[in-house]
């Protein structure tokens, strides 16, 4: 008997509390999964508005906490991932059953349940917003585990959306945050069998471990985006959009262009256009200096993530014009031993020139052999044939045309689904190949009738199994002999475990006063 005690596995600190969060989320998801479409829309809309209202505040906090990115650009992403996502899916319905008359099939949307979401430090708030919005639209509970570098702002962002959602009728516990993420805690939550799906956005090791967890997982890997500028392209426009995209949020999106491939026939004209758009073309000597700075000993130095072109240039003692937005580093060949052909996450763009579009496609394939399979690529071209050849030859699942890839592949400047989570599909060893969107977070129960024509399907119109919640969810546990008495909801703040302060006393006093009123009433 005593042996059982000795052999009992000891859970690392924080894990029991994390497991309690999963259990709370389980209760929340059970309740949320029965909500009707009107309630879901009201909740998602409220969260989106709250997110938008704090878009700038959290953009500033994110830059402060992580030390990277550009406030203005983060504002744009935060808005896109709150009201932007709302506007996209406002008229969609992932809740109400639909009837496929001819097939005698009725489809009943079913929520996944509990989502465990890992979010990165590079797009902290936008990713938190995005995943919460998708969870709310699909009636799922979500536990956010932010990257430790951005845990403060991520928790605040999630709580803003949580408070708005709950005020609009969402169940208690529908949005929770791991405030002190640690590797053992994340492992414990990923492998917890009550988690229904993991949505992992971040580095490859984390994404791979999500897949190994034994739970269904949607993981997305890194990008390494080739962009081909082919001779039919509108050069000034291409230069503009590449520079804008590469400099967006100091290039920390996984969709940011990594290697520019230019057809030699137009190379000199295009480099002039690039310079005009704010790019600084490095000399061969300068390329060596920059390479040594960003890739010391051939390995990427994460200190440069999200730093500006001016900061990088200054660190290399390179004089650049004031308005410089990106640095362009010409390289000879895209080969594994060329570090600049890797993902860089800062506004440094490698450039190779190629003799033809066909050679350009080969170069792009070489870029993707380094990393970024399943992710995205861009092309600037007026030629449908070349575009088709490029798209069908590259192992990527989105090729955006005549637009910056940063916001193009993220669905903000194209008709792709707006997201901070780019599915990399089979090429990238992910279960989802599209931009993460609501449909990935539900299943559908199919009611299927005998195909024999003589057996008819009765009328399912207006049969809706879902309903609006009655009051707060869950109901506050008032004594059964007080039911029906006018009830003032209590503040949900729990009694703090230790430490007293005036605020707590004040809340307690208010609770007592409210109860007195109820009892008198």
């Amino acid at each position, binding site marked *: *008997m*005593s042996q059982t*005690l000795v052999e*009992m596995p*000891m*859970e690392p600190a924080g894990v*029991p*509390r994390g497991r*309690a*969060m999963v*259990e*709370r989320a*389980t*209760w*929340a998801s*059970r*309740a949320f999964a029965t909500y009707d479409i009107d309630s879901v829309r009201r909740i998602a809309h409220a969260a989106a508005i709250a997110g938008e209202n704090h878009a700038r505040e959290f953009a500033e906090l994110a830059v402060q906490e992580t030390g990277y990115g550009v406030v203005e650009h983060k504002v744009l992403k935060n808005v896109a991932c709150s009201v932007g996502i709302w506007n996209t899916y406002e008229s969609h319905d992932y809740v109400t059953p639909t009837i496929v008359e001819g097939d005698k099939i009725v489809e009943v949307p079913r929520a996944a349940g509990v989502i465990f979401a890992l979010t990165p430090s590079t797009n902290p708030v936008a990713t938190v917003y995005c995943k919460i919005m998708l969870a709310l639209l699909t009636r799922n509970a979500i536990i956010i585990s932010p990257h430790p570098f951005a845990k403060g702002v991520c928790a605040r962002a999630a709580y803003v959306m949580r408070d708005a959602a709950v005020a609009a009728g969402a169940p*208690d*516990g529908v949005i929770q945050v791991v405030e002190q993420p640690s590797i053992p805690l994340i492992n414990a939550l990923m492998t917890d069998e009550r988690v229904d799906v993991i949505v992992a956005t971040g580095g490859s090791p984390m994404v791979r471990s999500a897949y190994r967890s034994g739970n269904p997982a949607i993981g997305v890997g890194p990008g390494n985006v080739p962009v081909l500028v082919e001779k039919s392209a509108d050069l000034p426009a291409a230069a503009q959009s590449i520079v804008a995209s590469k400099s967006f949020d100091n290039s920390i999106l996984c969709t940011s262009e990594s290697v520019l491939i230019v057809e030699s026939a137009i190379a000199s004209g295009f480099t002039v256009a690039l310079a005009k758009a704010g790019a600084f073309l490095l000399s061969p000597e300068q390329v060596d200096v920059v390479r040594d700075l960003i890739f010391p000993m051939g390995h990427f130095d994460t200190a440069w993530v999200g730093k500006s072109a001016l900061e990088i240039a200054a660190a290399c003692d390179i004089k650049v014009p004031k308005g410089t937005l990106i640095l362009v580093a010409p390289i000879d060949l895209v080969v594994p031993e060329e570090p600049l052909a890797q993902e860089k996450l800062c506004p440094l763009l490698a450039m190779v020139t190629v003799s033809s579009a066909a050679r350009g496609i080969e170069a792009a394939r070489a870029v993707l052999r380094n990393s970024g399979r399943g992710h995205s690529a861009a092309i600037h071209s007026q030629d449908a044939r070349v575009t088709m050849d490029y798209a069908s030859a590259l192992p990527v699942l989105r090729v955006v045309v005549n637009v910056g890839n940063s916001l193009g592949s993220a669905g903000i400047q194209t008709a792709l689904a707006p997201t901070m989570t780019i599915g990399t599909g089979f090429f990238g060893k992910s279960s989802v190949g599209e931009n993460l969107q609501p449909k990935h977070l539900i299943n559908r129960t199919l009611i299927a009738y005998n195909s024999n024509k003589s057996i008819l399907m009765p009328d399912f119109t207006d049969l809706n199994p879902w309903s609006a919640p009655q009051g707060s969810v*869950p*109901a*506050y*546990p*008032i*004594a*059964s*002999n*007080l039911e029906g*008495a006018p009830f003032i909801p209590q503040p949900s703040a*729990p*009694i*703090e*475990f*230790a*430490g*007293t302060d005036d605020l707590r*006393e004040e809340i*307690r006093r208010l*609770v*007592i*006063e409210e*109860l*007195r009123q*109820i*009892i*008198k009433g």
Partner: protein
Amino acid sequence: MTRLIPIFAKWSAIWYGRSMSDQASVEAPYDYGVFSFASKSEVLDKAKAYWNPGKTQFWIDSGVPLVIDRREEYFIYDMSGKRLIDTHLNGGTYNLGHRNPEVVQAITTAMQHFDIGNHHFPALARTALAEAMISSAPTGLTKVIYGSGGGEAIDIAIKTARHATQKRKVVSITKAYHGHTGLAVGTGDERFSKLFLSDNPEDFPNVTFNDLEAMESALQNRDVAAVIMETIPATFGFPLPAPGYLPKVKELCERYDALYIADEVQTGLMRTGELWAITKEGIAPDIMVSGKGISGGLYPIACVLVAEHAAGWLTEDGFGHISTFGGAELGCVAAIKSLEICSRPETRSMVHYLSDFIGQGLRRIQADYPDWFTGIRQNGLVIGLEFNDPQGAKFVMRHLYENGVWAIFSTLDPRVLQYKPGLLLKPEIAEELLDRTEVSIGRAWAEVKSLRGPR
């Protein structure tokens, strides 16, 4: 070949000098290391011979021949292997489940350093628990005194009130239950006091529950030290205090210079959806008692929380009450961890969900048996089920037992079944519990009807 195996096992035990317990496992299938039994009937026979023949026989006669063997989460297993969902939880002792892993871990770790401790000296774990208790307690409570169980804690509360007021009388409700120790048993129903010539109506007057006039007349001579109240009287079957009753009793206490002792042994620790049920009534008690669940179900301990104006003896004569095991430091560790788990926002949320879910499920069942299942008394996860028969809950208890649920009738009102699901009960087990409950209530009704015969 198969017949050779036990012989081989015996030989190898002799040849290789295997431990006694390994050898015993060949002969006694129920081997627990320091003791073993050959069968369940051996346990029952010996329980009657050496322990408590009355109690042992009672359960056999009641159709609940339970000898709890394995226990984990909210499950207890009879020696036969039969699994039961525990909704008795010994009055909340197992609020956090049987052998809650977090509490087990805390105590196991603590045992590398602590033992019971020395009751005369200030102590590490005792001080830490006292601070945690006070910081999470209703307003005004400032000191903690420890007992080794709820009864002792009630005795301490009464002694404290008597010292503070210099009065002797303690008022409790008719059919009250506050434990079996010297003073506590006096406050309760004579069911437990007369047997031991311990009834003392002079010092322990009873008044009818929910009767404010009776309460006032008991107090108006200003000769009462304290009123002691379970926030919801458990052993009496959880009759709910009428709206405003308890606050009014507190008011009367203030008017007539008596202290208010809140017995939160069963209702505390988040069971009603707030850490202490008394705060839901808007009452700041002068003295509050916590027991049962505070032990984590693993190391006995009970706590008395006292307001400064009642805590005088702790300064005047700190050795006034002494308890070797009261506040045992291992118990304090169990209590700190249990209190922390109960205080978590996640726990509070889950209790609200579970209360809502179980309440709705019970009302659905009730709708099917309106003539039999006549009432639900519920405040959070404190739940009493009323049945339309003087012994109704005993029938339901037996059918629940047969159907894999352990819930007990209320000793002082056997119409009412005590139904206390665990705070951390998983949703799927809650569903299973309701399924089993529905079937059992139906079968108990069929049995009662057949006994009553055609009308």
